[in-house]
């Protein structure tokens, strides 16, 4: 196998997990496959592995129940927060005094915390629920972002206002990949705070669907933490 062909195979093999990558690359070297054939073989295996993961319900929930609608709704909410910020904090006065607090400042603050909370919990659940398909879920969540960024036409705002949710969401995904679940008390406090922060919107009839579409990950974390806690208790009972 030529060095260029082998480079292709090695790049393709990055899609495989550690031990399997080792075994497959060794097999290809031993069989003296051509670079193209080797790369096709490795791609074939990687695709089969990915497809096998999608037999489970979790990747579907993470991608189409969370990543896709979540990113769309969070973009809308990011825009809403940006517009509220622009309306409340007048740039001219801001320059003169440093900061001017408008009448809806508390609401703005609530919305900022809500945006961070929703983004982080959504990202956390996306990362923890299906770790091996997280790249696909991330790609799916970027589709509405690309679509909306291309069609953004608000002159007074930068198009990047749509992406305010992105940093806390990425932070959430990284945390979800590292720790599968958070402690019961933390999960409960987080879910309660997020739900409390949505109270101002309860009066609007049309908002309850997006509210719950973005709040369920927080309560999912509570259920998962409770299940983990219950399992630990059961284990403790068995050992004593």
């Amino acid at each position, binding site marked *: 196998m030529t060095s260029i062909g082998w480079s292709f195979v090695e790049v393709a093999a990055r899609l495989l997990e550690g*031990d*399997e990558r*080792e*075994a*497959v*690359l*060794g*097999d*290809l*070297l*031993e*069989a003296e496959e051509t670079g193209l054939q080797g790369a096709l*073989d*490795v791609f*074939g*295996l990687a*695709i*089969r*592995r990915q497809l*096998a993961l999608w037999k489970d319900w979790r990747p579907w929930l993470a991608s189409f129940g969370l990543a896709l609608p979540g990113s769309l709704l969070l973009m809308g909410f990011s825009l809403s927060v940006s517009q509220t910020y622009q309306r409340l904090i007048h740039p001219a006065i801001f320059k003169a005094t440093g900061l001017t607090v408008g009448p809806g400042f508390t609401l703005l603050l609530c919305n900022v915390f809500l945006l961070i909370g929703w983004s982080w919990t959504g990202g956390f659940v996306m990362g923890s629920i299906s770790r091996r398909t997280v790249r696909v879920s991330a790609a799916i969540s970027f589709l509405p972002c690309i679509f909306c960024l291309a069609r953004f036409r608000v002159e007074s705002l930068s198009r990047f206002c749509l992406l305010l949710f992105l940093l806390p969401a990425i932070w959430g995904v990284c945390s979800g990949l590292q720790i599968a679940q958070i402690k019961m008390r933390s999960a409960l406090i987080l879910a309660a705070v997020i739900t409390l922060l949505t109270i101002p919107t309860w009066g609007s009839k049309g908002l309850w669907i997006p509210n719950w579409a973005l709040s369920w990950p927080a309560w999912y974390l509570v259920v998962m933490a409770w299940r983990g806690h219950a399992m630990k208790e059961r284990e403790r009972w068995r050992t004593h």
Partner: protein
Amino acid sequence: MLGEFEYLMITAAAGLGDKAYGAAIREEIEQTTGRKCSIGALYTTIERLEQKGLLTTWMGEATAERGGRAKRMVRVTPKGVKAARDFYEVVIRVSRGASWVANRTGSAS
């Protein structure tokens, strides 16, 4: 019941004994059947059979001809042996009376 490729895999691994690993099983299947065996089919089937408890695998030693990379060694479990035997017996039973079987044994004219 096993699938055709699963049976081939178990039989090849059983025949190779202690020397059963990915590349060797693949070569054995290709030589015996005359058909191409893709790496994808090989490793997904190994994993499926391992999940069913018909095979066990572990990472073996690395050799120079493999560029210092380890082998994924394979061993057929007693459950795997039974599943392969059951499949073989079904093939024998279902083949009784088939013209090509009768022609081979020479009992039919």
